[in-house]
């Protein structure tokens, strides 16, 4: 098919078929819009092909091996556990393929016109798409920019796809590296570091700040730190990665000493930058913020009112569920609905061991905002469910306004807590008070009981304080 000079009109043009883009496409189409979705690579984007999904597929596999190796005290012994890295990669690929074909089916079912190619805006109402079949021009009524982000590198440690890897490349390794150095102790670096440690690599994490997972409640990070030690992962905080030589990665440690860390592979996971290069945003009149992300309002509108931006390229938390949510909002706004990104909380989930998850304000954030804070805690060492799983590291913290009982944040560390973040987020969205969580019957035996227990501790405290008040008044 030659379409060199084709000029096609579409109601809604969506650039980028990642989490944000394909969800926006389906939703807008189902709400009655005629939608064209342009994807340069594969439907599903970073999340499906190089992020959330491949990482969790490998993590769940490494966990299985690790759990089994640690099950001797239960009388479960496996003579010899082998992991065929190539076969694991093949299985991972099958998972991705299945989800990708699921998205294709979704697009077909919603009547979304999917175009393969790279789009560039050439004006406020026009984009050019260069694809395998030539160049095509689209005019649109509305456009959604959903081009995501790419790994940020370090100038002195450029990605080479061989020894210096970004997360995408690290997820495709057929065999675990003998010695892996991870530069960056954020969630991506830690998830991959732990994963390869469990598959047999020697792993060292080099973090520039004083805390792993910067911004996370320190109580949660402390639990993780202890577990990392037990897993045999070495962590250097307040350390700076230098250049890579044959001997290894030069690192300046906290105490000022320079050390060379032997490294077969170096994973650089120090952040992501918006994917806006060559997109023609200037031609369209779209403005960026000081960090290069597309500036949007609550409705995901850019400065050009009929051009929207969603997902990683629009800044905020660079998370797939944030991208998807914005995709829905943009689609609804385009369909004439009064939608907005007015969330109370975007949950964070980190698939380390133990897992970490939270929604809302941390204790210190709440204090900074002027709240009188009350904190309820529950330790998973006291949880029947955690004990039956053989995994008791972790805790729950419920942060509330002492005066009103309003729940401000819920912070979780422990087995499966990624699945508890939804309840935490719902509590915040519903404006729940401590009493609501404490009075909600949480099923036994589950890890979710930790949220109830932490809330009950707070509710009982409040109850006792109220009783004292009454007694004093008499």
């Amino acid at each position, binding site marked *: 098919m030659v379409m060199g000079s084709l000029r096609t009109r579409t109601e809604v043009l969506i650039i980028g078929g990642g989490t944000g883009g394909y969800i926006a496409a389906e939703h807008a189409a189902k709400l009655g819009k005629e939608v064209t979705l342009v994807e340069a690579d594969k439907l599903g984007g970073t999340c499906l092909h190089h992020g959330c999904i491949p990482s969790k597929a490998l993590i769940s596999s490494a966990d299985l091996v690790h759990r089994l190796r640690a099950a001797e005290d239960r009388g479960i012994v496996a003579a010899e556990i082998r992991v065929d890295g190539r076969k694991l990669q093949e299985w991972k690929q099958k998972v991705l393929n299945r989800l990708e074909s699921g998205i294709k089916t979704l697009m077909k079912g919603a009547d979304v016109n999917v175009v393969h190619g790279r789009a560039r805006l050439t004006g406020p109402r026009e984009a050019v798409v260069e694809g395998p079949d030539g160049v095509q021009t689209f005019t649109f009524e509305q456009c959604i920019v959903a081009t995501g982000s790419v790994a940020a590198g370090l100038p002195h440690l450029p990605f080479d796809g061989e020894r210096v890897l970004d997360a995408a490349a690290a997820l495709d390794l057929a065999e675990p590296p003998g010695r892996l150095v991870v530069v960056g102790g954020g969630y991506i670096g830690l998830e991959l570091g732990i994963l390869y440690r469990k598959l047999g690599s020697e792993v060292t994490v080099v973090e520039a700040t004083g805390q792993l997972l910067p911004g996370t409640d320190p109580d949660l990070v402390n639990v993780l730190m202890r577990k990392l030690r037990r897993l045999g992962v070495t962590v250097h905080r307040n350390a700076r990665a230098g250049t890579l030589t044959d001997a290894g990665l030069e690192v300046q440690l906290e105490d000022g000493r320079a050390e060379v860390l032997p490294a077969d592979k170096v994973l650089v996971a120090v952040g992501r930058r918006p994917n806006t290069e060559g997109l023609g945003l200037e031609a369209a009149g779209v403005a960026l913020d000081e960090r290069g992300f597309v500036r949007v309002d609550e409705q995901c509108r850019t400065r050009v009112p009929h051009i929207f931006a969603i997902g990683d390229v629009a800044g905020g938390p660079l998370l797939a569920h944030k991208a998807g949510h914005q995709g829905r909002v943009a689609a609804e706004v385009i369909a004439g609905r009064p939608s907005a990104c007015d969330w109370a909380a975007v949950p964070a989930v980190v698939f380390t061991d133990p897992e970490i998850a939270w929604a809302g304000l941390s204790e210190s954030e709440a204090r900074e905002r002027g709240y009188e804070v009350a904190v309820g805690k529950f330790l998973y060492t006291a949880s029947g469910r955690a004990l039956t799983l053989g995994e008791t590291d972790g805790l729950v913290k419920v942060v509330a306004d002492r005066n009103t*009982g309003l729940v401000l944040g819920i912070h979780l560390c422990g087995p499966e807590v990624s699945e508890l973040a939804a309840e935490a987020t719902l509590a915040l969205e*519903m404006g*729940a*008070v401590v*009493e*609501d969580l*404490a*009075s*909600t019957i949480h099923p036994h035996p589950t890890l979710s009981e930790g949220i109830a227990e932490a809330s009950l501790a707070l509710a009982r405290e409040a109850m006792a304080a109220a009783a004292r008040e009454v007694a004093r008044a008499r």
Partner: protein
Amino acid sequence: PSVPGAVPAGRPIATPAIRRRAREMGIDLRQVRGTGPAGRITAADLEAVAAGRGVAAAAPAAPALVATAPEAPA
């Protein structure tokens, strides 16, 4: 799809904290008309009843004043 003041076909709809507050205030929630989504009873609805402005008297004609007992545990 939430219609304020809609008729709940079962138990009164209110959060656990509101239910506790109502008990403290001696208010029977089955006799309060909720103004929240799907007829949810809000703190303001309770205050209105306490101030004598809300619907607090049993009035069989008003379908919002459901007189059935709270549901048996599921």
